[in-house]
């Protein structure tokens, strides 16, 4: 009778108790359905058709056409994710309070979530294309002499990332933001902090962990961009992202080891970026956002 509780207490103090069982379904799920297939894939990347264990990786890094996809991908996804998160903050901040039509504006801002890649791609091609409404407007307004090229290049993909990624970011940021106790800002106001300082010193730090998560999620979505990189991008040039290289290897050349290697490298690059962001997040305050009792 006394030995069991003792162990239990010792474990409890280290934070191990029955509540951790709640983790079990998720952990079990990920281990059975992800880890095995994933390790298989990683293993595959070390069994290339030629060049020994690391052949696939060597091929990736010696071939500039493959290697450059890393930079291409980052050049697209980092700015897009940053823009999505940064633009969401002021908009969500404005929309925190109560005002008429808030629901409508929120709903409208969230609409792009429903678009899907195909409609976005078609829409961008139609709207921004050389004879689309956008260029027509510019031309008839006399702002430009020749149609501006905004599709089948970097900008097309970038716009599609913003259209699909921004609502995600906005929705998350708005929810995180409304979880912050408004009396904190009021306290700051009575202490002489103006709008900007209240935001900068109180709201932003409390929001930052949420922003980090939001950034990670939008970044991941942007990083693995595939259909729009092909459909509205320039898939052999400026928007040849890593997923296109992986796709080519897997489904065009049927070189699965190389495809796995590219995919593993994709994951690694993402992991590096996210580790940096989450590492930064770990330094932040992440507790309750209430200001005290009540």
């Amino acid at each position: 009778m006394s030995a069991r509780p003792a162990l239990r207490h010792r474990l409890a103090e280290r934070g191990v108790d029955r509540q951790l069982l709640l983790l079990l379904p998720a952990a079990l799920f990920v281990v059975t359905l992800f880890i095995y297939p994933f390790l298989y894939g990683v293993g595959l990347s070390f069994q290339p058709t030629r060049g020994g264990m690391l052949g696939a990786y060597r091929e990736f890094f010696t071939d500039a056409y493959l290697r450059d996809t890393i930079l291409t991908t980052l050049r697209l996804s980092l700015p897009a994710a940053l823009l999505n998160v940064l633009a969401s903050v002021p908009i969500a901040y404005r929309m925190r309070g109560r005002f008429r039509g808030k629901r409508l504006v929120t709903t409208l801002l969230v609409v792009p979530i429903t678009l899907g890649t195909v409609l976005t791609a078609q829409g961008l091609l139609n709207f921004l294309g050389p004879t689309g409404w956008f260029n027509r407007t510019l031309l008839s307004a006399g702002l430009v002499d020749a149609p501006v090229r905004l599709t089948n290049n970097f900008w097309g993909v970038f716009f599609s990332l913003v259209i699909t990624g921004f609502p995600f970011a906005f929705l998350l940021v708005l929810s995180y933001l409304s979880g912050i106790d408004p009396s904190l800002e009021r306290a700051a106001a009575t202490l002489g902090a103006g709008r900007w300082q209240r935001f900068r010193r109180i709201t932003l730090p409390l929001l930052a962990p949420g922003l980090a998560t939001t950034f990670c999620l939008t970044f991941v979505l942007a990083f693995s961009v595939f259909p729009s990189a092909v459909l509205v991008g320039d898939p052999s040039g400026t928007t040849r992202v890593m997923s296109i290289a992986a796709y080519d290897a897997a489904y065009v050349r049927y070189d699965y080891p190389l495809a796995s290697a590219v995919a593993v490298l994709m994951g690694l690059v993402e992991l590096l970026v996210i580790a940096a962001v989450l590492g930064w997040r770990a330094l932040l305050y992440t507790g309750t956002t209430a200001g005290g009792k009540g």
Partner: protein
Amino acid sequence: SGPGQDTDGEVPAKPGRAVTLNILDVAGNLQLTQGMIDDFVSHNSGVISRVTYSKSPAPELVGKVKAQQNANRVDIDLVLTGVDGLSAGIEQGLWNPLLAKYADRLPAVRDYLPGAAAMQKLAGDSGVTVTYYPSGPLIEYLPAKVPNPPRTAQELLAYAKANPGAVQYARPSNSGPGRTFLMGLPYLLGDQDPTDPTGGWDKTWAYLGELNKYVTLYPSSTGETMKNLANGSARIIATTTGWDINPRVLGTVPKEAAVGTLEGFHWVTDAHYAVVPKGVSTDKQSAILLLLAHMLTKEQQAKAYDKGYFYPGPAIKDVDLAMAPPESRAAIGEFGRPEYAGLIAGHPLEVPLGAKQLVAAFDRWDREIGGAKVAK
């Protein structure tokens, strides 16, 4: 077709019991053949009780079939594919070489058109050609905007030079006309070995590189080149017989668009195949053989005329437009081009590149032509 069913044994003449067939189309072939299949099923419900159709882009096909075969549970019974899926599957050993043993159950294979017969050779015993067309390369333009279309490859280059951005073809790996243009160039330019894109295409690569200077855009789909032709942002695009007729039927391209040929071109033909993955039960194999035999009859083949989708379409000899369904005849009567018969008869037919060479060609095109834009 779960485990435990016979998949390797002798294929009976008729399935023991009516089967359900799961057909996967990765080539857009059902547009032509769904009518034939439905016709068979409605008359032979004792052989095939039900058919389910699904569609997907070709590249994902191999992964899916592989996953099923690894798990010993194949539930795709029949695949309709183009050359790419066919040869990828052959390379990976996915297909059941049905013809090796049961060619006699498909007597129609002896009646293929010469071009179709050549295409069938590519498939070996692993697939059966069901539809065929000579494809291209052709060029398409609006006569109002291009009164004097180029007649040779050099003229095309000169035209592109004089009108930067006016000539367009889609990224070859995403587009049939794009790849037909690519594969047709070695013949047009008299390259050393038109079947070896790495060693024998010097003139082709030089030509494409030169042309690249005046091409502003390689769209990711043929459809988009068509749209650009229609709205005037491109003047000359690469096309094929099917891509010439069908979009005009659909209204994506103005009816008055015209096609032209470049002097000395060879047709680079194309076909669709029916293949059976390994691991499909013998009952189903038997049903499939009966179905294919039906599809290769002349009456059924006539349906392949469609609305010019794969013009002409039939793989079998002596299938006249007159045998086709009335809508087909009407559409082709209005939008078809009488000159095609002469062109098909008057120019050599070549089979397309094998999968390996084609991939090598795509890769080189991506790096040197499409990817060169990065450096600019």
